């Protein structure tokens, strides 16, 4: 997280922290494992009032940033989510809200207003199942038939699809990449729940069998969505990275405290050099994760030319070192670290899942290679 928040960002952080502590203490999060949606509708509505869904939305649509850099502001809230392993569709709702505000036009204003109020949930249909599950692969087709667009294909995993009223779906047509906003009750749309490692987030496989939406469902231009999809990916990665760093911070702090309190052979774990050195390594990864997450957030927020590689560097680094840090925390806790009773797994789940969403570290490293290969041309 940012080393220094401005006073208004601090208000958002503080309000989010207090609200999450009250509404979703860790005991509550444990009980969510059997909850179908993973969060309560009124929980999300009140959260939206705190600003969770409006920071990437233009003022004329009812949104607005706090500091002038809405995405950076949003990472302040996302960090608190990670720090408390909190539930709620923070990534997909914000990605869809940002897209509707940027290119949705008048047709989607009502949906956008619902997202801002927290009364509607929308999800982002980006990833596809194997063998199309490589980062950025889109095989779902959207075919124009008269005044309608017909969708065929599968998106998975789609976060919160089970409770979402709308899905922003990326498909491929003759004209190129296209995005449409699809109500989940559209005939031909089937939502099947998936199992996942997290306690709070729910994912589904969403099948489109000749599902028809009117041409007004288009978000942006027919065949012209490549740039907006790239933008959405960057936004998702920034929010996800900030969350993961929050979870890393929580696990690290918890494990440092444990090392001071737990005695073995008559001395605290924190006195053993072998463990101290591992804590030092973890501390360096943690600070590096904060740094690259914040750097990527401001680059993506400012749409600077180095945003694509910075955001992939954040995803690749945090994906790789985040899970290593968490597993080291488990190791240092010993047996208790792999129990359901202990809080550590709440954070382990968060970074493990985040690592696998929207491109693995290896995929993002290859994406970076594509950028660095052409670096001289950019300079």
């Amino acid at each position: 997280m940012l080393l220094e928040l401005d006073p208004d960002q601090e208000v958002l952080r503080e309000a989010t922290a207090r609200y999450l502590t009250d509404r979703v203490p860790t005991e509550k999060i444990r009980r969510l494992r059997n909850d179908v949606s993973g969060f309560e509708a009124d929980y999300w509505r009140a959260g939206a009032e705190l600003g969770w869904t409006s920071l990437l939305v233009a003022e004329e649509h009812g949104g607005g940033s706090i500091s002038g850099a809405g995405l950076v502001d949003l990472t302040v809230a996302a960090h608190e989510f990670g720090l408390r392993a909190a539930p709620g569709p923070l990534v997909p709702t914000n990605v869809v809200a940002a897209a509707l505000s940027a290119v949705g036009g008048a047709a989607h204003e009502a949906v956008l207003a619902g997202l801002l109020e927290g009364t509607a949930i929308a999800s982002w249909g980006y990833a596809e199942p194997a063998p199309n599950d490589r980062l950025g692969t889109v095989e779902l087709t959207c075919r124009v038939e008269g005044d309608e667009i017909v969708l065929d294909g599968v998106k998975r995993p789609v976060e919160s699809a089970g409770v979402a009223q709308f899905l922003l779906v990326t498909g491929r047509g003759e004209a190129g990449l296209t995005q449409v906003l699809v109500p989940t009750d559209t005939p031909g749309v089937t939502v099947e729940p998936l199992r996942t490692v997290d306690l709070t987030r729910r994912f589904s496989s969403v099948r489109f069998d000749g599902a028809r939406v009117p041409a007004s469902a288009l978000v942006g231009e027919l065949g012209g969505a490549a740039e907006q999809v790239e933008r959405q990916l960057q936004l998702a990665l920034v929010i996800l990275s900030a969350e993961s760093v929050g979870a890393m911070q929580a696990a690290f702090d918890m494990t440092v405290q444990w090392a001071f309190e737990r005695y073995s052979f008559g001395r605290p774990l924190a006195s053993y050099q072998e463990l101290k050195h591992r804590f030092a390594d973890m501390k360096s990864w943690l600070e590096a994760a904060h740094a690259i997450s914040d750097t990527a957030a401001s680059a993506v927020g400012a749409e600077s030319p180095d945003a694509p590689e910075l955001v992939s560097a954040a995803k690749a680094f945090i994906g790789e070192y985040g899970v290593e840090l968490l597993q080291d925390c488990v190791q240092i806790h010993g047996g208790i670290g792999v129990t359901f009773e202990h809080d550590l797994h709440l954070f382990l789940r968060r970074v493990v899942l985040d690592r696998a969403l929207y491109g693995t570290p290896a995929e993002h490293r290859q994406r970076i290679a594509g950028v660095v290969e052409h670096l001289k041309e950019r300079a």
Partner: protein
Amino acid sequence: MSTGDIEDVETFRQRARAWIRGNLAPLPAGSGIGVMRAGESDEAELAAVARQREIQRMFYDAGFAGIAFPREYGGQGLTADHQKAFSEEISGYEYPADIQAPTFSPCAAVLLDFGTEEQKRQHIPAILKGEELWMQFLSEPSAGSDVAAALTSAVRDGDDWILNGSKIWTTGAWWSDWGLVLARTNWDVPKHRGLTVFILPIHQPGIEVNRIEMLNGNKEFCQEYLTDVRVPDTDRIGEVDDGWTVGTRWMFHERMLHNSPLVTIPADGARGTIRATHLVEIARDAGRLEDPLARDLIGEGRMLDLVTHALQGRLSRGLRSGRMPDQSAAIGRLFTGVTAARTTTLSFNLAGGASAAWTDDDGATAECGNDFLLRQVSCIGGGTTEMARNVVSERVLGMPREPAKDRGIAFRDVPRGASNRG
């Protein structure tokens, strides 16, 4: 620092860009790459150092020397942001690499922190003009990471001190002018309380400079033998027996080199590193640029570059604002050391069979095997990563300190090897 009447960073940047492009030669691709690669010849090295002094003088004459140094010592009195802009603009052009570290930081930085007014007026302008190259007489053959266990002694003799002992790992002492020396002035107190810092000209009777050959033929490190070297008390830095106060700051500046507003280090990295852009060259010259596994390694290298840069920025801001304790600089030292070693491994792996045997015609893949032999240099030089881990765990996280047999007892009585073990 005064505000208001200084040049704004953007105007300064434009002025710097125009001057750099008009006066300095672009660097050939891949120059300065590799892990301490051996130079061509002593003559070539001396010529390179002479050129660097010349460039430093050009900086001075053009108003670009000591950008963030105070004006009263010949600097420009500008800010860290101006220095950063200059470092960004000079990327890809020749610059006085060997003068930045350690002359500007840590040596000149220590002078600014602890030097007397007279010392600063004598040396800082000369440093800014390229007339004085400084080196660190810090490490000793017997001490390794235990820097405070220095055996080099300084004994008071009237208005002078007499120095005896040996210093090691001094980069380029054979072509440098001045040394910043940590010496023992009191053997009857615990080790940290009996040290004092001095400065001295390197080339004088009583100092013998021997060059050390590294395993790849590089000879930039030196060992010096000091025999009855006379140093006037006016060349003492800081208080007598309080050298550890100076030394702590000295090592802080060393660890913060890449964030220092006092040095010019091109934005694309310091010399003697392997950068991700170079990994692309290696992969291309090895004919495996399209191989997804190779691209994974290139991406990892670039990721580590970007993360390192972001981390250094965060530490720099945190230390400046006081939100992080000074000892957090060790986090950067640890991360950059481990990362540089990893990047060297990436280049070794990308070069493939050319790591085993090569010719100069093999392009960027040549020498990758030799670089790998020296890989651990990044985790040893400037303080080992193990020491950095101790600092992070003990001073940043507050974990219990390692037991030490030398704590609280006179340095005279500390065991120093098998021979005097009680």
